[in-house]
């Protein structure tokens, strides 16, 4: 129920903001010498853009309720098809970035918390703060400069070389963008993991476990980390929009053919149906991620599972 309200809010804000943008989908033909303003007015009418805003919204919303996300102005395909074609690339990028961020971030966080105020902790903290402060797009640019232009180790963009569909080729292209995208998230993840671990470490039951003579390794791995990971699951859900945003930026820098590119292109062409579709998609994804996080927490946490 609340999620439905949320979706309505998101769609209204999105629709209004989108229509605030002057220009519109026909602007791209403005410089076409053979097209007159008449042509543009005619096409706008054919696309239904001459109707009042609220009529357009209701039309869109009722289509949405029937599972019809509309048709892309630019591409002529149904919005879901258009998005569907780009989801894979984004998920690949986000997925690999998440794997990197979670594994490295969790490790750094745990180590930082268990070796609090050690030089490792210090370096990790400073490193995380810096990583959080580097503009992602700039980091990407510098990455391209160093690793593509200077050293030539990695390709400067795209997902694969045409004519080479091997996994290695994909991996080769994936490394730079996913590392760039992961960087910030390693930082976020390690900071939160550190805090969560510190939280867990100061709990009474950890003292109990130690008092029982449980080996320190097991105390950390089983008692501390187990409990520290719980809030992290929720965090993962909450972090999704920011991961998505990061992916959008990264995709732009590395010309990755995912939803980020699609989003920027669609926004550039004022392809309203696709932009709205992407907004709804990301809202739904966020809601779903939070829901999944809740479910996972519930599965892992007996207090919720059995309550």
């Amino acid at each position, binding site marked *: 129920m609340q999620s439905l309200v949320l979706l309505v809010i998101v769609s209204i804000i999105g629709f209004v903001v989108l229509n605030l943008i002057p220009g519109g989908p026909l602007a791209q033909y403005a410089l076409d010498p053979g097209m007159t303003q008449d042509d543009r007015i005619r096409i706008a009418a054919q696309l239904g853009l001459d109707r009042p805003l609220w009529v357009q919204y209701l039309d869109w919303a009722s289509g949405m309720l029937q599972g019809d996300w509309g048709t892309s102005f630019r591409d002529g395909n149904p919005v879901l098809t258009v998005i569907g074609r780009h989801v894979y690339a984004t998920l690949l990028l986000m997925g690999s970035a998440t794997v990197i961020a979670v594994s490295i971030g969790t490790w750094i966080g745990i180590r930082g918390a268990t070796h609090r105020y050690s030089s490792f902790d210090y370096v990790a903290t400073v490193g995380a703060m810096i990583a959080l*402060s580097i503009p992602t797009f700039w980091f990407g640019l510098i990455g391209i400069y160093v690793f593509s232009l200077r050293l030539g180790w990695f390709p400067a963009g795209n997902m694969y070389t045409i004519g080479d569909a091997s996994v290695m080729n994909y991996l080769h292209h994936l490394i730079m963008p996913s590392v760039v995208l992961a960087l910030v998230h390693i930082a976020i993840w390690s900071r939160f993991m550190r805090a969560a671990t510190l939280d867990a470490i100061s709990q009474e039951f950890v003292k109990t476990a130690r008092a029982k003579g449980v080996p320190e390794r097991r105390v950390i791995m089983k008692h501390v980390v187990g409990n520290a990971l719980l809030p992290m699951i929720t965090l993962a859900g909450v972090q999704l929009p920011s991961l998505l945003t990061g992916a959008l930026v990264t995709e732009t820098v590395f010309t990755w053919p995912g939803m980020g590119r699609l989003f920027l292109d669609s926004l550039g062409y004022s392809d309203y149906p696709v932009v709205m579709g992407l907004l709804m998609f990301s809202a739904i994804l966020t809601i779903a991620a939070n829901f999944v996080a809740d479910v996972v927490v519930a599965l892992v946490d007996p207090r919720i599972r059995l309550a």
Partner: protein
Amino acid sequence: MNTITATRPTQARWFQNRVLRRFLSNKLAMFGLAMITLLTLTCVIGPYLLPYDSLFVDLRARFSPPLTGYHYLGTDPLGRDIAARLFMAGRISLLVGLFAMLLATLLGTLVGVIAGYSGGWVNALLMRTVDGFLSFPTIFLLLALAVALKPSPIMITIIIALTGWMEVARIVEAEVRSLKEREFVLAGRMLGLGQAHIMFREILPNAMGPIIVAATLTVARAILLEAYISFLGYGIQPPLPSWGNMLNGAQQYLATAPWLAIIPGAAITIAVTSFNFIGDGLRDALDVRNDNL
């Protein structure tokens, strides 16, 4: 009977002494504070010390690498002095960051306090709106708004604030929600104080800690966001420099004039890192948990 000898009233309002002491002993936070002070000072005085104006175009000097003559940081494609531009840009970027933070914090605090204190449907409505804004990819709102409204430093500030208040609102809401169960709030109600009084005079000062932390981090975020939209060309308009629009177009010259990208990027990173250090230091200092570990 237990009487207390009167001592001079302590002037600790927001910070209890211990918090301040802990903050002052945080090396990173102090480093951040020093960096920010230094940056601000350079941006304020720097332009007067340099022989070049930030707007002066000299095509013969274009693409001078750093340390060419008096162009300490080199020149840009129009032959303008990068050092002069960097400092002028710093003024803009820092101001935009600070004011965006102020706006975002005000708005977020207002929404957060009302939502947190009210509960019920008011809370549900406000917080769902917050969630709604949060579930947009930030750059959508940012770009769409930047595109929809004519870019000017003031507009950019407002736009960034509009995309950055939700985090503050969330933090404040959670804080207020927990504070309102505290006994001193019940005591306020018992005394028959008005709702607004309780919200803003009793509860709000107690939430200042997290708000300040959030505010510091919001400055950092705002500087990053300004940089990003200006980088994309939707932000601060040329010839007025900002750290972000100095990067605009720099990627074209990555191979031939990498300093165009490296210098402003480094400035952004340093400024943002400093604010993050300060924010983190404040958070640590305010975190009572640190007492019993």
